[in-house]
């Protein structure tokens, strides 16, 4: 189809009337040549023959003057997009599309995207910590950064005092424990009790007590309060503050702040529950952890422990120390292995340790002690059994007199001053399985620099090495010990632990326990005039 150009001819108005969009046609001089009814409804001041600028808002007149092809702006309470076309040389026509609804939708979308991004960011930050204090800091900082000019997190409250965490936009969170009455802030007591707070517009910002407001914030223009849900833990509250002139919180903003507060509350509560649970777990685990060993009454002791699961601190191997009540008395140590692994086995180690602690006070003889322990284990509801080694040590001068008795456990190794390694000649039946137990006790002496090593089979049966499948074995253990003559007890333990761990690499392993009893090396004569350093007091 051919289109014939008709220069200078005005378009018939009937065409313009047919358009659902407002249209304004201009001549070469920028005067209104014609317009349709839709246009005159939007621009009542339009006059044919008058300059465009007289009848339309400035944004359109300026866009026309600059020769732009499109423009966008408000007319009254609506917004329009204007597009220019050139129906005749020199002339122009502006076509208008009402974008009010679209703009509103776009604005709503932009706001929603902003909120979603903020909630994602908030979740990232809140989820990363299980520390309640840190969660409260994060809550205050996030709220101050995105929802208000400053934010205050309240709770948890004690009997008369309450934790108050404040943050100003862009600043760090600060925390105080204050003896204040939350009822001074209208609605705060309700929010702290988990009830809905009064709407922002009902609160007179001038009545806010000074303790709520961060230092240097200035007068408060408006505030809103929302509960931080506790979900089982005591709830808290979030207060958002705006400076003067910023205007009150809209309903939409209040609703969004509550969405944020629900997430923050859940995070804080999870952290509080976690703290409580782990405090309980710690308390219960305390007595099951191996004791710290050090020099006691001239006997060097050192221990090493590694549970089979790296995320546990306890397992089925154990050792314990029962110091002599008096200097020169006999100190007893035990190292053993309860059948099984993990927490259940650990619980039984605790029972054995407690039982031994009491029994040794009435029965110094090892074999008899094992019989009593066997009886105690058999009569308990546990069906597990254990193997263990008892060692009683008494210092006489610089020599340690040692009695060793194995109850079904690998016999201890003894490294002599010359590097020779001996296996203690003791054996016996395991404990807690049969009605009768038998055991033989081996007595020996440790001279200065000599060490007796008690160990669990987790060490000797550790599988690994360069080919990944060989056992560490007693031979390698003896070889390692032969280099340990004259070494302090900790160094012997560290040395063996490192060799066994390196042997294992990243492989799976059983519980591993080690305990070294060492007769301290003879101190060398001090330098002339050296007075030694036992004197650091005050």
């Amino acid at each position, binding site marked *: 189809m051919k289109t014939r150009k008709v220069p200078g001819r005005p378009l018939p108005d009937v065409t313009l009337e047919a358009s659902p969009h407002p249209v304004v046609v201009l001549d070469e001089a920028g005067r209104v040549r014609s317009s349709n009814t839709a246009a005159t409804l939007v621009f009542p001041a339009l006059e044919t023959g008058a300059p465009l600028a007289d009848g339309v808002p400035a944004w359109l007149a300026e866009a026309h003057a600059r020769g732009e092809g499109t423009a966008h702006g408000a007319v009254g309470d609506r917004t329009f997009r204007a597009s220019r076309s050139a129906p005749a040389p020199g002339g122009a026509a502006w076509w208008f599309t009402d974008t009010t609804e679209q703009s509103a939708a776009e604005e709503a979308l932009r706001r929603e995207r902003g909120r979603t991004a903020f909630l994602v960011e908030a979740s*990232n*930050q809140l989820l*990363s*910590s*299980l*520390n309640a*204090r*840190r969660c409260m800091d*994060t809550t205050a900082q996030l709220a101050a950064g995105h929802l208000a000019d400053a934010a205050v997190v309240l709770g948890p409250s004690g009997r008369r005092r309450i934790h108050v965490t404040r943050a100003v936009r862009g600043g760090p969170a600060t925390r105080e424990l204050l003896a204040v009455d939350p009822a001074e802030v209208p609605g705060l007591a309700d929010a702290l009790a988990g009830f809905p707070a009064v709407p922002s517009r009902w609160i007179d910002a001038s009545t806010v007590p000074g303790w709520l407001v961060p230092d240097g914030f200035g007068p408060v223009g408006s505030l809103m309060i929302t509960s931080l849900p506790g979900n089982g833990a005591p709830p808290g509250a979030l207060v958002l503050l705006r400076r003067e002139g910023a205007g009150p919180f809209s309903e939409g903003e209040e609703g969004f702040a509550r969405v944020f507060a629900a997430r923050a509350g859940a995070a804080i509560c999870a*952290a509080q529950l*976690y*703290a409580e649970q*782990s405090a309980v777990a710690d308390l219960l685990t305390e007595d099951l952890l191996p004791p710290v060993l050090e020099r006691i009454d001239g006997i060097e002791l050192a221990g090493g422990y*590694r549970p089979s699961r*790296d*995320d546990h*601190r306890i397992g089925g191997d154990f050792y314990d120390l029962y110091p002599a009540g008096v200097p020169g008395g006999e100190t007893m140590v035990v190292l053993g292995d309860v059948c099984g692994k993990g927490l259940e086995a650990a619980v039984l180690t605790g029972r054995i340790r407690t039982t031994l602690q009491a029994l040794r006070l009435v029965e110094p003889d090892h074999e008899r002690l094992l019989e009593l322990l066997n009886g105690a284990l058999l009569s308990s509801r546990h069906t597990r059994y254990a193997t263990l080694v008892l060692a009683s040590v008494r210092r006489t001068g610089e020599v340690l007199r040692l009695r060793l008795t194995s109850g079904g456990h690998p016999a201890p190794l003894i490294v002599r001053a010359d590097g020779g390694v001996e296996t203690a000649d003791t054996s016996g039946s395991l404990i807690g399985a049969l009605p009768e137990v038998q055991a033989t006790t081996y007595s020996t002496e440790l001279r200065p620099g000599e060490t007796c090593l008690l160990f669990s089979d987790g060490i000797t049966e550790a599988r690994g*090495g*360069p*080919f*990944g*499948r060989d056992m560490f074995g007693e031979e390698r253990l003896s070889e*390692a010990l032969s*280099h*340990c003559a*004259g*070494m*302090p007890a*900790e*160094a*012997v333990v*560290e*040395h063996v*632990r*490192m060799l066994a*761990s390196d042997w294992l*690499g990243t492989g799976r392993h059983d519980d591993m326990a080690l305990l070294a009893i060492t007769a301290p*090396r003879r*101190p*060398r004569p*001090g*330098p002339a005039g*050296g007075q*030694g*350093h036992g004197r*650091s007091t*005050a």
Partner: protein
Amino acid sequence: MTDTSVSRSAPWSDRLWSSVLDGDERAAVDSVLDALDAGLEPQSVLLDVIAATQRRVGEEWAADRLTVAQEHAATAINERAVAALSAHPACRPGPGSRGRITVACVDGEWHALPARLLAEVLRLDGWRVDFLGAQVPSAHLVTHLHRTGPDAVALSGSLPTRLPTAHAAVIACQSASVPVLAGGAAFGTDGRYAKRLRADAWAPDARAAVNLLAAALPKPGPAHQAVDALPHLSDHEYTMIASARSKLVQDTMAGMADRFPPMREYTELQRRHTAEDIAHIVDHLACALYVDDDRLFTDFLAWTAGILTSRRVPAHSLVLALETIGLQLHDFPRACGFVRTARESVARTVSSPSS
């Protein structure tokens, strides 16, 4: 370390060194306490006397003048010297205004003394320090972070083969929003591996760590996974070589015996040592692939060549081992490249007349 602090501390570190060498704990404790009484700053006693002595222990071991067992004995005595020092009134902690910090070693790390010294130095600087020691599984470290909410973690590592484990720890700490300061020989002399693992900061020594921490570390970014920091991991060369370690060692042993018949006459002990050496080479190759840096591998081999030479073992065996390993890796282009570079570098060192 300033020149004056070195020259002032030198006599004390010499004295500590000879006490440690004698295995004389009491003399060792006396020498550090005397240094303190003589007016040496506590920080200087820790870093210029004790740390310097510990460095010397490592050097002497490398030069084959100390056994591993002696090294452990010396370290135990140095540990006791640190304990005695920290109980001394002159070493009372600072006013405690700095905040709280956790000091830990990478899991599987045995060299706890550098971390211990850093913990003491930070304590002196006014930090509230939780020292978790060596052998800290990541699960324990993270539990500790949640419970105490520290301002930072100082993570110490000396073995490059633990870098993948260190990376897991860095990610775990950062996921708990706690920034990580990395330090120790494992992270490279210029800290390049700390950077590659996206640690939040790296310090070449304890003094630098104290200075860096004095200005708060920025909060770490959002949680990420290992492959985000190290996109080359998606070629799976690291994962496959690390999991095939035992087979690779075995096949290399067999391959070397084919190419070098005298190896068939090796004693059991010699075979064991050779297998352990090859396992070390494979471990370091895997870690070099993990951080994608052939220098980690080349540096390790140069160091090993030095160790072998000081023990009068011909370093030519390394070239043979590398060639044999290389033959088995033709499906792994990155690994092949690393092995080739390392082999050429070792061959140059071994053949150069100065060595």
